[in-house]
């Protein structure tokens, strides 16, 4: 058990102990340990690494991996969808512990921030003792709880373009607090860059995009004008919902059926484009 003092210390520990589990907020790793599913020989705690808690916003947002959900709710990142997703995570206790880096590192298809990172077209920043690389979030996850992170690498943060206020996150669960999503959806309309981004959670082995739906919505904004608020009509909202649901690849599991997930994704997409269309 090692406690990293700073980022250099964390990186050299990760290089020395490639088999070590990285411990940040503990909300995932400690459950595995408490239930005897993991018994790590080595743990490197990175929760005291101050460099991982930075947050910068200057046209582009750069959020350190150690930023907790509670810190996300304090704002400073300018992303309404990040705020909304953080708001749905767990409880105050969990939000005080869980981090951006932990959500990425666990790489669960149900990770609440992850659809937002997909919709923002975020880049994940990975660093080893020797190099730093950026990986597009859409290439970061390779399967349920699998990612391209190498054992000697630490997720140091993520960055994305400041996309403006027209964005939202929605989640369906069985109650408001302490709930793993049945399905989650993020929609970003970056009016300045004329880009629509969609991210779907709990709807496939990884976080999914919805390219056809994005193209369709971009066409709607081409017609209505990107700079102005607009109210897509019912037929257009339905079609958008159908295209988003068509991109989902859900399964039946303990939290819901595939058919239910497809249904709620269509409903969320319809509501999300109505909500976001009105924001300019």
């Amino acid at each position, binding site marked *: 058990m090692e406690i990293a003092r700073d980022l250099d210390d964390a990186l050299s520990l990760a290089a020395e102990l490639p088999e070590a589990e990285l411990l940040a907020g503990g909300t995932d790793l*400690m459950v595995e340990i408490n239930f005897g599913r993991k018994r790590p020989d080595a743990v490197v705690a990175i929760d005291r690494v101050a460099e991982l808690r930075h947050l910068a916003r200057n046209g582009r947002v750069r959020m350190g991996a150690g930023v907790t959900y509670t810190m996300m709710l304090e704002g400073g990142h300018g992303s309404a969808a990040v705020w909304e997703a953080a708001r749905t995570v767990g409880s105050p*206790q969990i939000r*005080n512990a869980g981090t951006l880096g932990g959500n990425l590192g666990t790489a669960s298809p149900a990770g609440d921030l992850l659809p937002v990172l997909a919709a923002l077209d975020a880049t994940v920043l990975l660093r080893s003792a020797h190099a730093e690389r950026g990986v597009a979030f859409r290439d970061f996850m390779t399967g349920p709880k699998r990612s391209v992170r190498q054992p000697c690498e630490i997720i140091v943060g993520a960055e994305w373009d400041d996309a403006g206020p027209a964005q939202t996150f929605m989640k369906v669960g069985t109650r408001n607090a302490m709930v793993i999503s049945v399905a989650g959806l993020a929609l970003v309309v970056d009016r300045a860059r004329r880009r629509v981004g969609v991210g779907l959670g709990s709807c496939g082995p990884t976080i999914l995009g919805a390219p056809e739906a994005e193209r369709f919505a971009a066409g709607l904004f081409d017609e209505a004008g990107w700079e102005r608020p607009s109210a897509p009509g019912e037929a257009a909202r339905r079609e958008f919902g159908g295209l988003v649901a068509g991109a989902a690849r859900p399964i039946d599991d303990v939290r819901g059926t595939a058919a239910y997930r497809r249904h709620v994704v269509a409903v969320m997409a319809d509501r999300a484009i109505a909500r976001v269309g009105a924001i300019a």
Partner: protein
Amino acid sequence: MNGLRLFVNGVERRTEVRGGESLMTVLRERLSLPGSKNACEQGECGSCSVLIEGALLCSCLVLAEAARDRDVRTVESLAAGGELHPLQRAFVEAGAVQCGFCTPGLVVAAAALLRDNPEPTELEVREALSGNLCRCTGYGTILEAVRRAAREMYTR
């Protein structure tokens, strides 16, 4: 076994711990502080809530060794000099305690809320206690207890 130093309820404590032990286990079984309860061990129920460096956390999700040298406040720190904390008294008076198992975690979570927000709205109280499960009361009397304590603590 490894040595561990913590500052618990203002007192320096040293103990031996096994790798993988949670802070909750160390508090209950090595430091004789059984107020933090062991129920779900996955952060779902809030019964083991403590303050670490002032932040409300589930002690079952804290690796004890990772808390080295940290300031930890448990429910045992609330009653000072044999006097119940206003929240504890309000819980008794409002009938917010039935089996009592969830009570320590709820009192710690409510204390963290009132420290940061002396006049919480009903929704803010519900939100602040959303990580603490009670299977007995239906929560009505718990919300009433927090309202009472807030009145007593801050409206003088």
